[in-house]
């Protein structure tokens, strides 16, 4: 029987890695991710997990060690956050283009300066284009579930891409919630052993990581991109199978009370749960408002997204990151995904929740009301914020 226990999201992620029976973990501790490698190190030391724990000297080395582990066919896990993800940045690209199905939990953290260990999505957005499958969690159960799912999808012979599981720093990583832990037999049924056909082996030498001169680089990147887009099929299959075994169902775009909604609010990560409270109140008063959340960030779920927002008049996008000189990165992508659609909602962007600033119910009330004003005015200032002190004046694109 599965059991319901109180777990921090970080411990839930470590528990998922343990139940997945990872072979290698190479990680460097950084707030707010620290509890994940700490717990894994403890499991290995106590004999609860038969794995190699490599205590590397930096995140750059952490990801590099993970490449080596994956190259010989080891089930490989790591975790990082914020500046750590930035330090490993160049190796993050290597993992996806060499098709190593490493699973990495990212406890989303703001980027310096000012120095901040607190949560927002700047680190996630900076690795948007790295070719990893990326999903966002809204609560601790999802952090457990999606970590487990990540191994299954990434290691599928039709996929072979690394997977990033984003969970908000502190808001999830350090919060204790009830989590349902499955039986090991259920996990084993869901997650087969990793069998990597191209594992490095001295008996049958081959080359991983050959260089790509101009006459082959383009073909290599297009082959990677086609395979990445095709991975969506297995992503969906993985969630389907997960639902069948564990009874919890995941979708590329999550919906909450969206039936007949004229206004849709789009959030990512843990603030989605706060937004639900506000949506409930407004729905109960008869407002045609719903909530959507991008579960799957890469590959971007164009089809599902367009289908779901088709009937809406206004789509409000809350970004927890600024792409300097541009606006919210989620907003930019969402608007671009809709540009050629007829009909399409008016898309409004609000930026908030930076560097650990809470996004409260009141903030969401403001976000919704203000967005409707902006949509009605028909013109947009290029910078709209929530929860930031001081009036926004004279900002033009």
């Amino acid at each position: 029987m599965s059991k319901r226990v109180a777990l921090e999201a970080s411990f839930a992620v470590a528990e998922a890695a343990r139940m997945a029976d990872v072979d290698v973990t190479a990680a460097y501790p950084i707030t707010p991710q620290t509890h994940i490698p700490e717990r894994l190190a403890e499991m290995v030391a106590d004999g609860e997990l038969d794995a190699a724990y490599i205590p590397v000297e930096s995140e750059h080395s952490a990801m590099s060690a993970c490449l080596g582990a994956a190259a010989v066919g080891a089930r490989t896990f790591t975790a990082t956050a914020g500046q750590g993800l930035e330090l490993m940045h160049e190796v993050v690209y290597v993992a996806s283009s060499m098709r190593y199905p490493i699973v990495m939990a990212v406890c989303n953290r703001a980027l310096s300066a000012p120095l901040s260990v607190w949560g927002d999505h700047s680190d996630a957005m900076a690795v948007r284009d790295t070719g990893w499958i990326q999903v966002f969690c809204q609560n601790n159960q999802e952090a457990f579930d999606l970590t487990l799912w990540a191994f299954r999808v990434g290691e599928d012979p039709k996929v072979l891409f690394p997977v990033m599981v984003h969970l908000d720093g502190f808001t999830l990583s350090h919060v204790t919630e009830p989590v349902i832990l499955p039986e090991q037999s259920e996990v084993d049924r869901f997650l087969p052993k990793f069998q990597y056909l191209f594992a490095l082996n001295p008996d049958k030498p081959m080359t991983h990581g050959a260089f790509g001169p101009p006459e082959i680089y383009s073909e290599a990147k297009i082959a990677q991109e086609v395979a990445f887009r095709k991975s969506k099929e297995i992503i969906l299959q993985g969630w389907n199978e997960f639902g069948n075994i564990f009874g919890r169902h995941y979708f590329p775009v999550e919906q909450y009370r969206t039936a007949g909604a004229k206004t849709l609010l789009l959030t990512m990560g843990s603030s989605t749960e706060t937004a639900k409270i506000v949506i409930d109140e407004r729905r109960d008063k008869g407002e045609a408002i719903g909530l959507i959340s991008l579960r799957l960030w890469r590959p971007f779920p164009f089809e599902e997204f367009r289908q779901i927002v088709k009937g809406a008049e206004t789509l409000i996008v809350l970004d927890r990151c600024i792409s300097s000189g541009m606006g919210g990165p989620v907003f930019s992508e969402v608007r671009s995904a809709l540009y050629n659609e007829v009909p399409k909602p008016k898309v409004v962007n609000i930026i908030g929740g930076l560097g650990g600033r809470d996004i409260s119910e009141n903030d969401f009330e403001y976000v919704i009301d203000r967005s409707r004003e902006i949509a009605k005015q028909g013109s947009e200032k290029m910078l709209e914020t929530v929860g930031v002190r001081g009036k926004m004046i004279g900002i033009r694109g």
Partner: protein
Amino acid sequence: MVKQLTWIDMEVGNIVKEAGSASFRRTGDWRTERPIIDKEKCNKCGLCWLYCPDVAIRPLENGYYEPDLYYCKGCGICAKACPREAITISEEEEK
């Protein structure tokens, strides 16, 4: 001539499944200088062959050595390694 691969031909992760494929690459065309071995001075010790980082010094049946100009990049390590100064490095001339 290496076959012109399309993106469909690419292996997963661009793995090269056969070992030793680097031997197909003519790295000698990077060269701006070439080694010339003076057989009068050479005592067939083989240090040039041993030191060459690209395995581009070939042993001959008569015991002497010669650079394999298909691969030799003209780095000059063989000339440095030769204890009898039998190898000189000479600039490639445009043909």
